[in-house]
């Protein structure tokens, strides 16, 4: 399309190449040969492919040039935090969860680096799992990502040293949710590769809450990749809560492989962040498997969010449902790309895609592209996208009952967002998120509010607010 726009190489790439060579001689030298080979192959793919470019269709509306031009440090070792106890606080009231912390890409143990819980559940550091459970790592690590043509994914496979690891054996229902807090708290501008692996056996279930938080206002780039294997008849609930500073870029890629009759609910709630990209790649690879993918984004200022969802219906009798909603203020921009592919002979498919947006200003922009690619004939699919403003009829109705303009707007925006929030199964999390969304809509949510750390010394000068006075004016959309 824009071939004359010659691939521009960033100095960052050279820096990463040097870092890889160093790791290869040191940290990676102790890894198994298989793993070393996996890393080398991934590294070669990264060198060939490089970073995403806007002349690639799936990156057309998310330009990482600015983010990739920063002078990032690539740390090869975990930092020593004096106040590790801080890392483990969490303020979701009434939420009982098993918490784990990944700070700047490194797993910080509460007790041991890798714990075995009741029923044989293994949770902890991926780096540790690589040492102690090579059989699981060799089977599953990079099992989905190796087919990806994305440079950033390959880079992550090559470079990522830590993140979280979860293994649920067959027939184990993990009642208590796992909560992973991925916090960026460096004083330096860092480029992080974080890798997570979740293996769920047959007839099992897991609920995972993944929070991405900033601790301060230092810019950063987090390239996070998660692979999830969901076995036959198993369930996986996944909530991603994103509340990052305006200087941070987060590329959150998740690959989910679903076996027969498995169920996945995945939700990404983006409350703040300079630039957020959520890649979700789901393979419905067993009859009767189902995936519900939800997203909510509330962006303002120059924030950018991009949700890219790719679902492959590989087998008959599989279902998928996508619902993404967003409110954009100021010059915020959003992208939704939903790609559903129904493979030949995958009959009796149901697939629905929906993306709805409220734009509060003329400068706010959304690019939405729900897309169905169907090679079977007995399928039920639909897709839709809307871009609009608050309903003036509804505003008049509410005000005619004595409700102020401000409250009426908040009620309507909240109601708009609530459709997604209602999909949350964990009651405590739903209540917490309802509260956070209200605060966000009223301009009262700062990154500290949601950050688990609740530290005293964090800068407070930032406020994130959606300007209520602008609601009702026209916005524009580009489809």
């Amino acid at each position, binding site marked *: 399309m824009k071939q004359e726009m010659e691939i521009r190489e960033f100095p960052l790439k050279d820096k990463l190449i040097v870092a890889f060579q160093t790791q290869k001689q040191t940290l990676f030298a102790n890894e198994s040969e298989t793993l070393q080979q996996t890393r080398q192959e991934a590294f070669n793919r990264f060198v060939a492919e490089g970073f995403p470019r806007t002349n690639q269709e799936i990156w057309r509306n998310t330009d990482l040039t600015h983010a990739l031009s920063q002078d990032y440090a690539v740390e090869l070792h975990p930092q020593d935090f004096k106040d590790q106890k801080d890392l483990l606080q969490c303020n979701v009231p009434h939420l009982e969860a098993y918490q784990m912390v990944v700070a700047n890409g490194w797993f910080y143990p509460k007790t041991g680096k890798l714990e075995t819980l009741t029923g044989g559940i293994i949770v902890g550091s991926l780096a540790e799992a690589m040492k102690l459970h090579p059989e699981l790592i060799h089977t599953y690590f990079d099992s989905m990502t190796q087919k990806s043509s994305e440079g950033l994914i390959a880079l992550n496979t090559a470079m990522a040293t830590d993140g979280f690891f979860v293994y649920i054996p067959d027939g184990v229902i993990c009642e208590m949710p796992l909560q992973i807090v991925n916090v960026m708290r460096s004083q330096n501008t860092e480029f992080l590769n974080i890798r997570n692996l979740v293996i769920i056996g047959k007839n099992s279930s897991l609920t995972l809450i993944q929070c991405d938080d900033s601790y301060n206002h230092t810019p950063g780039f987090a390239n996070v990749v998660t692979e999830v294997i969901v076995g036959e008849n198993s369930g996986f609930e996944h909530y991603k809560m994103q509340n990052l500073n305006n200087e941070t870029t987060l590329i959150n890629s998740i690959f989910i492989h679903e076996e027969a009759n498995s169920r996945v609910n995945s939700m990404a709630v983006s409350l703040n962040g300079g630039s957020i990209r959520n890649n979700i790649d789901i393979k419905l690879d067993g009859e009767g498997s189902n995936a519900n993918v939800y997203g909510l984004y509330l962006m303002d200022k120059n924030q950018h969010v991009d949700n890219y969802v790719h679902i492959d219906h590989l087998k008959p009798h599989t279902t998928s449902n996508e619902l993404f909603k967003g409110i954009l203020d100021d010059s915020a921009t959003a992208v939704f790309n939903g790609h559903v592919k129904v493979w030949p002979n995958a009959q009796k498919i149901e697939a629905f895609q929906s993306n709805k947006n409220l734009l509060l200003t003329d400068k706010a922009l959304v690019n939405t592209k729900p897309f169905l690619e169907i090679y079977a004939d007995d399928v039920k699919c639909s897709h839709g996208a809307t871009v609009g403003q608050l*309903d003036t*009829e*509804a505003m*008049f*109705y*509410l*005000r*005619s*009952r*004595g*409700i*102020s*303009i401000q*409250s009426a707007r908040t*009620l*309507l925006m*909240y*109601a*708009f967002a*609530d*459709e997604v929030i209602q999909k949350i199964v964990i009651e405590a999390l739903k209540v917490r998120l309802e509260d956070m969304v209200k605060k966000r809509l009223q301009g009262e949510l700062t990154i500290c509010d949601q950050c688990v750390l609740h530290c005293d010394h964090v800068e407070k000068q930032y406020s994130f607010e959606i300007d209520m006075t602008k609601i009702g004016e026209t916005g524009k959309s580009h489809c």
Partner: protein
Amino acid sequence: MLLRIRNLHASVNGKQILKGVNLEVNKGEVHAIMGPNGTGKSTLASVIAGRETFEVTEGEIIYKGKNLSDLSIEERASEGIFLGFQYPVEIPGVSITNFMRTAVNEQRKYRGLDPLPGGEFLRMMEEKKKLVELQTKLTNRSVNEGFSGGEKKKNEIFQMAMLEPTLSILDETDSGLDIDALRIVANGVNNLRSAENATIVITHYQRLLDYIVPDFVHVLFEGRIVKSGGKELALELENKGYEWLKQGTF
């Protein structure tokens, strides 16, 4: 005098709809405004409520001694003006309970009162729901979403009961109602009548006035009230239809 409308002219998108309406309403009275479609009945209701799509080009509306043009939609509501919608709006995601709690408390705030405690609010809800035989499960649902025509109108009268207005304007409340729902809605309105409030019933048919008996009947035609009388005028209209108005024989 609760409401005095003088020489009211109003237009929408430059088109003149009301062309000099005069109307006076006292506390304790029920007024019916009748007339053929498209003569400005709903416009009059919307203009009193303060709908911004209409522009008042001449004349004034004085309510409780205040010129309504100085008050916003929500201020008018808090001053006790209630509009029962002909087509109640569906608001997905906002439950009736939350909607009413917000409305009641914002009106209380306007009047300098503290918010109603939760328990008291819920008791009030229970009491008012009975008045219009509104099912409990409906109040947990989103406002008017998926409601039948009858449920929507019951919900309007329920809101009226909750907000205890001084002046209620019911715009075509009878449209889309079967006879049972009509009776329930009318009973609700009658139960809320008092010497301290007034009601303006806008209707196309005489049918509703069998249940809500007006003290005065006005005929609105081509943007003006062309005839006023007692409740017998409604019957006369029912017999003669509106054609005779158009022939100018009144």
